């Protein structure tokens, strides 16, 4: 076979090869994103995502969406500009959650015996679907950044509330009131994570009484818009192709 000859001999074979490449690329992309996104989220979201007694109505709501919109924005930009595929955010979050569940189950539970109901990951899928949906319907990265980024922040807390609400039921324990999540953090000893490390319920947002979660979510949404813009440029840069002429070498 010469260099100018096609590697396939019929249209049917071309389709078959193309589909094989589809699956290979998707498989590789899924696991690369899983690894990169997982490390990124563990380093930036970390304990807020690890433990129920960190999942508060102020900082978790604020921090988790901001640090988690990064990879979805970049992968969306890549998949949309190069292929018009609006599934970048969902692929990222499915990968992240698969990695997180494996980690939480095998490491947190399997090696150090923390109950899964204490160390399950946050749910990011509602925001990811809406982010992809807005990109599909609007066809604009700017619109996706503004509307999708805001929705990403706003949907995070309500998307997780059905899972964490049962753990916010109060309990009286040896003369003090705490939530069941607080009690989990107290009961299940973490040698390297003392109580004072917890960054929960800190800040000056006190004029909204008990309703601080929506305010935190709006703030998170606004910052998510900015982070989306930034990371979508990373995605575009990563997906760009440059040819260098021999003269420049």
């Amino acid at each position, binding site marked *: 076979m010469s260099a100018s000859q096609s590697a396939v001999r019929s249209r049917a074979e071309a*389709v078959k090869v*193309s589909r*094989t*490449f*589809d699956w*290979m690329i998707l498989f590789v992309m899924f696991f690369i994103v899983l690894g990169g996104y997982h490390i990124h989220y563990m380093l930036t979201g970390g304990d807020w995502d690890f433990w129920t007694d960190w999942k*508060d109505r102020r900082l978790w709501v604020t921090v988790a969406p901001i640090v988690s919109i990064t990879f979805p924005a970049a992968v969306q930009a890549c998949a949309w*500009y190069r*292929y*018009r595929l*609006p*599934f970048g955010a*969902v*692929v990222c*979050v*499915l990968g992240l959650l698969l990695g997180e569940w494996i980690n939480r189950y095998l490491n947190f539970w399997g090696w*150090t*015996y*923390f*109950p*899964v*109901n204490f160390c*399950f990951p946050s*749910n990011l*899928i*509602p925001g990811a*679907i*809406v982010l*992809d*949906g*807005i990109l*599909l*319907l609007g066809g604009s990265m700017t619109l996706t950044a503004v509307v999708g980024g805001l929705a990403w922040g706003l*949907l995070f807390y*309500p998307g997780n*509330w*059905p899972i964490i*609400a049962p753990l*916010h*039921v*109060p*309990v*009286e324990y*040896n003369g003090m*009131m705490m*939530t*069941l999540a607080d009690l*989990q953090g*107290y*009961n*299940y*000893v*973490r*040698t*390297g994570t*003392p109580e*004072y490390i*917890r960054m*929960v*319920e800190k800040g000056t947002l006190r004029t909204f009484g008990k309703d601080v979660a929506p305010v935190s979510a709006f703030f998170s949404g606004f910052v998510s818009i900015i982070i989306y813009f930034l990371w979508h440029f990373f995605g575009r840069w990563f997906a760009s192709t440059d040819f260098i002429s021999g003269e420049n070498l």
Partner: protein
Amino acid sequence: MKLLKDKAAKLSFVALLAATSASMLYTPTAAAHGEKSQAAFMRMRTIHWFDLNWSKEEVKVNDTMTLSGKFYVFLGWPETVDKPEVAFLNVGEPGAVFIRQGSWIGGQLVPRSASLELGETYEFKVLLKARRPGDWHIHAMMNVQGGGPIIGPGKWTTITGSMKDFVNPVTTLTGETIDLETYNLDNTYFWHALWYAIGLAWLAYWVRKPMFIPRSIAIESGKANTLITATDRKVGIAFTAGTIALVAIAMGNTNEKYPVTTPLQAGLLRNMKTFEMPTPTVSVKVEDATYRVPGRAMQMTLKITNNGDSAVRLGEFNTASVRFLDSAVLEDTSGYPDDILAEDGLTVSDNSPLAPGQTRTVQVTASDAAWEVYRLADLIYDPDSRFAGLLFFFDEAGKRQMVTVDAPLIPVFI
């Protein structure tokens, strides 16, 4: 194509084999907590643990034991470590093998961090409930913000039974009794599985069609607009609207099901009750102190004055949780861990009773392999080469007095 697939399969198999070998063939039990690695000055000059008691050495799953004792917050706290203004009474254990059912400082529950005062002694107790069978090294521990974990003495404790039998019942303020070990687990799995399935459905919609190569060619040839069909848009609307609706409905239902919820509780506990140790009538001045590296022994020249009304003898030197005893004065009956107990490790040049009003200068030697094993000898590499510890004197009636020492230490290499 077949060649490519075969190669991919071979490489995947090799990678899988390597990953399995690396992760599974050698997984030793994590038994201790790096207590020997912690800088010696941290253990000698911060929190001094004493009178420790592990109520049981063997305990069944679901049974409880207590770890209790006292700790002295050293007045000569090193400048290189943040002061214990925010500190958390913890337990050093390899994972949650015991759960902490309660912990108290001076009788006050401390589920949160507390502020401790330098130069004060506190009484503490931790109630532990056995959860996972095995032999575990259980330490007292104080985490200090800006200082890190300050680990106290540890003792091997055996848990028998089966973890499957472990229960952690709790009654909430809404009157429901739950098992915290498994509470909310099905709900967590349900919502995560449901949302994952919805995410997969979204992905499945797109991957059933040709993806990368044909779409890339279409975009390169200016046909990008043809790639999104009317059906795609309808599906997009359905998923987006459906997601928002599901989130709203689920949140509403949850609020109906759990009308009483409270925010996470946080805050610092202040004004912890201190333990009043008897005021010492013995005063001690360290004239000099050396550490003889080859002999694994620390020698101090102490000028001791007895200002009390009863003769006293030096019975114990306690530093970094290692206890050096003069067995002629004091014998341990508390079951203190052997590896950090030198029953005859304290030698005093003249330990005859020091009469009231009398002053005597003595040579005190604390020698034991623990200096080396517990890496206390590494003190000579510390940024502030000082030693510190507690001296316990006993009068004729057996009454105990605690005196602290804190002085420079000179290493002797020859």
